[in-house]
């Protein structure tokens, strides 16, 4: 295994063009997945490109009411940033532990593409996009389209994520992470519901559910059925909404909990979100 330690993006993209590599940012997923016993080097089956020395990928800025997050930005910087909305911060402060939040990136969370990832839930709810770059190309893709399956993304081997773009909004929201304990727990179910009202009517309505499918579940088609209703009309349709999401989610049993439990928790969180709308 070779290690590559580029100091510029250009150099990194050239390396990815020439070699098939793992891309390692904070390492909090990759170092666990490739861990051997104490004292031994990790067992990477491919070359590794370390991103930590690349200049200029650690930033948070707002352009045209959208948040631009450099790929190497750690959770702690986002939690402490005045630009990052509280909805995202509330999700990030519940990820892993304080030390992991000092080390790890949201880019890593997206690319690890775990069904239990917390960071992708608000990104899908907010229609966030990724910038991917390769030596000869630069493209944008929504996080929803990027996540294509269990631990699978749309990334080509010579590409890397360079930026995350999140549209800023002022939705009211409810975020709940259900895990086995407060810190350091991989989620069993996550729920994020958001809405906007104007003149007593629902002007926007969005729901994203984590851990109940291969990636966070969101359906714009279902959401659009409820936009334009008055708050009371929406609440009267609670059974219909529950039924819609019951059909959308497909939890599976894993080490942490069984599928019936996850379904029940997800639906209970959905109900309490609808009750909370005012």
């Amino acid at each position, binding site marked *: *295994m070779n*290690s590559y*330690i580029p100091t510029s993006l250009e150099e990194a993209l050239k390396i990815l063009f020439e070699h098939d590599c793992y891309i*390692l940012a*904070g*390492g*909090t997923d990759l*170092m*666990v997945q490739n*861990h051997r*016993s*104490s*004292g031994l*080097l*990790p067992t*990477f089956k491919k070359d*590794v490109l*370390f991103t*930590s*020395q690349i200049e200029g990928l650690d930033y948070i800025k707002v352009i045209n009411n959208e948040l631009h997050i450099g790929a190497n930005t750690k959770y*702690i910087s986002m939690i402490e940033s005045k630009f990052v909305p509280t909805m995202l911060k509330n999700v990030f402060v519940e990820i*892993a*532990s*304080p*030390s*992991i939040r*000092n*080390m790890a990136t949201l880019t890593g969370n997206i690319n690890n593409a775990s069904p239990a990832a917390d960071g992708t839930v608000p990104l899908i709810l907010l229609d966030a996009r990724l910038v991917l770059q390769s030596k000869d190309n630069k493209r944008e893709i929504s996080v929803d389209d990027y996540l294509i399956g269990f631990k699978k993304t749309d990334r080509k081997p010579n590409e890397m994520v360079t930026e995350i773009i999140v549209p800023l909004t002022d939705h009211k929201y409810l975020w709940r992470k259900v895990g086995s304990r*407060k*810190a*350091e727990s991989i989620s069993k179910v996550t729920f994020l519901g958001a809405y906007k009202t104007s003149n007593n009517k629902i002007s926007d309505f969005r729901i994203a559910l984590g851990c109940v499918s291969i990636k966070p579940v969101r359906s714009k088609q279902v959401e659009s059925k409820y936009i334009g209703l008055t708050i009371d009309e929406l609440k009267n349709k609670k059974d219909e909404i529950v039924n819609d999401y019951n059909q959308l989610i497909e939890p599976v049993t894993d080490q942490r909990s069984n599928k019936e439990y996850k379904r029940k928790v997800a639906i209970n969180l959905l109900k309490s979100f609808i009750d909370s709308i005012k």
Partner: protein
Amino acid sequence: MKIKFNLNKKDVIVDVDPSMRLLDVLRNVLHLTGTKEGCGEGSCGACSVLVDNMPYDSCLTPVINVMNKQVMTIEGIRESKEYETIANSFAKMGGSQCGFCTPGMIIVTYALLMKNPNPSEEEIRLALSGNICRCTGYQAIVNAVKDASKGGKHE
């Protein structure tokens, strides 16, 4: 590969594989064994060190990720005057029993108190939330951190 970083206020250069865990560099290459290995996968905090004043799990940190940064281990913290206060409070409040978690607990306590000299109980529990202790049941550690903080009764 030669990798340079600042360790406990002195520059060091190690000639190791860039993917080597910082924990192994500290313990096996530099023979600083104050940093402990518990789980080896980011869940227990026994391997906590400070990187640019922030707690990191050294078991998940490839050494290349601290190149040109400042690393502090318990051996470096021991030289600070804050250490004495914290260590005395841990001793007084029974915050250490077998001692295996203690270097990590002191590292996160030190980082917390440097940033927030007068933390609430909730802030203390949050700061310690990545560190596991199999002996004390935590309350004694929380009490020790309170005692070591500015609002504590530490003399």
